[in-house]
């Protein structure tokens, strides 16, 4: 491990000739586009107008309430607060914020000690360079939904006691995992999954800047399959452009593969097999599907969509299958075997065919 960490020191001189080609691109600090295009000011943040409005007021001098951001991944929660902090505090923003995320220890003790010491430091209303800045500090608790309830409870007191000098910003995916007393102390902002046209626009901007050759239709397919997650959309775009190799435009197939969409044929075949009412055939089908490594939750999502719109099943049958779909989806997310759960979905579809 030691030699690994220090790296290079030991073996670098004798290092492989094979990789010498990469020496030409010496130490180019490459950052993925998600980081490169992370919003730098709150106005860069797409879609989340209410938060942006509140933060803009604060930047122009108003007071800031305690904040709670919640919403699905890749909708700009972390970016927004970091951008705001940079605008509020300028160069000294590192001193004024304490960022704690799920990778840090966040037991009760840490909340008591670290957060308390931090918030007790006074914050002046001017920066070293003489400009004015808000007289408070911000504690950012990212991924707060992974904090234990007792740690959250410990936060309650701290939050109230330090209102003079400190603002808190809690960020999470699932607001239901945050205890009531905390949510009631914050202004809540829901970060909606981003609008498809918004993502589309942003991706177009990026493609132009990076010189990516991608047709509008292809881009649209990409956006549709990213479910309102900007980060995923950007990563997919970058990956597609690299997987494709330079020159040729990004093909729809690459997009579908990268986003992990299951070809529609699989859904049709699934229904087909179930209609034959042979359980063993269904089990064989599920097995075959498993070998292809498609994600079961993706299958369930697409099947749900298909089920709602299809004319193959009667409303009663749809209701029966839909109910099962819910259970199966929950079990799968909860760690149940994809194979067994999909088999059990198939059983229900077969039974529903008789209804």
């Amino acid at each position: 491990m030691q030699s690994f960490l220090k790296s290079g020191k030991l073996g670098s001189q004798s290092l492989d000739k094979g990789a010498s080609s990469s020496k030409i691109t010496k130490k180019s600090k490459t950052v993925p586009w998600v980081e490169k295009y992370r919003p730098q000011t709150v106005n860069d943040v797409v879609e989340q107008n209410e938060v942006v409005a509140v933060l803009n007021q604060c930047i122009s001098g108003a007071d800031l309430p305690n904040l709670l951001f919640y919403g699905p991944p890749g909708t700009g929660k972390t970016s927004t607060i970091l951008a705001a902090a940079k605008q509020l505090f300028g160069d000294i923003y590192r001193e004024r914020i304490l960022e704690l995320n799920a990778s840090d220890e966040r037991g009760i003790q840490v909340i008591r000690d670290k957060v308390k010491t931090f918030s007790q430091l006074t914050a002046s209303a001017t920066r070293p360079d003489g400009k004015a800045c808000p007289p408070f500090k911000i504690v950012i608790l990212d991924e707060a939904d992974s904090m234990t309830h007792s740690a959250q409870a410990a936060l309650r007191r701290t939050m109230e006691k330090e209102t003079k000098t400190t603002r808190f910003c809690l960020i999470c995916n699932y607001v239901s995992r945050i205890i009531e007393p905390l949510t009631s102390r914050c202004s809540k902002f829901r970060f909606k999954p981003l609008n498809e046209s918004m993502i589309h626009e942003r991706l177009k901007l990026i493609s132009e800047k990076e010189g990516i050759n991608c047709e509008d239709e292809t881009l649209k397919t990409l956006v549709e399959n990213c479910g309102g997650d900007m980060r995923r959309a950007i990563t997919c775009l970058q990956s597609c452009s690299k997987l494709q190799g330079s020159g040729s435009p990004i093909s729809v197939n690459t997009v579908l593969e990268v986003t992990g969409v299951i070809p529609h044929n699989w859904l049709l075949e699934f229904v087909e097999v179930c209609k034959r009412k042979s359980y063993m055939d269904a089990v064989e089908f599920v097995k075959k599907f498993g070998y292809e490594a498609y994600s079961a939750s993706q299958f369930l999502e697409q099947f749900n969509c298909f089920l709602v719109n299809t004319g193959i099943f009667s409303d009663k049958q749809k209701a029966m299958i839909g109910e099962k779909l819910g259970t199966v989806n929950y079990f799968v997310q909860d760690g149940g075997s994809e194979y067994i759960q999909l088999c059990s979905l198939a059983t229900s579809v077969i039974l529903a065919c008789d209804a």
Partner: protein
Amino acid sequence: MSLLWCDKYRPKDFSKLDFHKEQGSGLKSLTKDGDFPHLLIYGPMGAGKKTRIMCLLKELYGTGVERLRSEVMTFTTPSNKKLEIGTVSSNHHIEVNPSDVGIYDRVVIMNIIKNVAQTQQLDLSGQKSFKVVVLTDVDALTKDAQHALRRTMEKYITNCRLILCSTTMSRVIPAIKSRCLCIRIPAPTTEQIVQVIEKTASLEDINFPRNLAEKIAVLSERNLRRALLMSEACKVEAEGKLTPNQNVAEPDWLLMIRETARIILNEQSIQQLKKVRENLYELICRGIPPEIIFKNLLDGLLKQCDLGLTAEILENAATYEHQMVQGNKEIFHLEAFVAKCMCLYQNVLEEMKSDF
């Protein structure tokens, strides 16, 4: 001891891959400008995930990544518990299976990533500004550990890239999927497996009957590693002269599970249940993952039981298996499932008797 075939002939280069060639060249161009996103590689067992990861690393760093050393690292948890975990590393990457330390996986991951990320590449000839951390069995990670990865993946992205390796996607939290490029590796088809067996045999200078290769390919359940192990076992057993119809030895744990299914359907009583328990215990002790025991037991039951019980067995399997992964005493849930199946079976048998 000489290397097993599946290790000896593992392709070391994208150009030498035997199947999914197109994907291979895609992955190759992914590394072209010396950079790549966090990856989440998923696919069934024996589909070639590890092989592709090693190819990627080689493409990125050259042959240096083949100079591997294994080390045991120690960590201390906040509650002062000492943890030991085996790692495999080169100058450019480190590979670890965090679930080896069970619920303390978070501590291990955080320590490794922070270590890696904070040691900048000092030497000037350094080729890359980042190192790679390979985490295997990501689907077995605790939720806690997965949450901890989130911001860490973003914060240290300039110095550290992750390659996550997993058999299913469903257990990975959405926030992590959103941060990775997800790459699907489907299992090779049976024809592809046959081809690999034949190619391997010719490299070993053995005449491998096609029929036998086909038989193995089917029995392997499209798991290439298992297929190669079985082929090698066949060769050893035949002492040089392979015949098209020779017996193919399947893994004995698999036979044992099948036998267990037979016991269940043979007679339904407390004594039988005891026998089943002994078998299940033995399988667990031998380190067969309970999920795999469950799946194969279910397959065995479905294949051997023909009383129109399939739907009910499947329904019950779905519930008991879910309970098993939730709980922490697997044997209880396996047994409960077995007892339930015995019960269902007996009821049907009795109904049939009273119909006479």
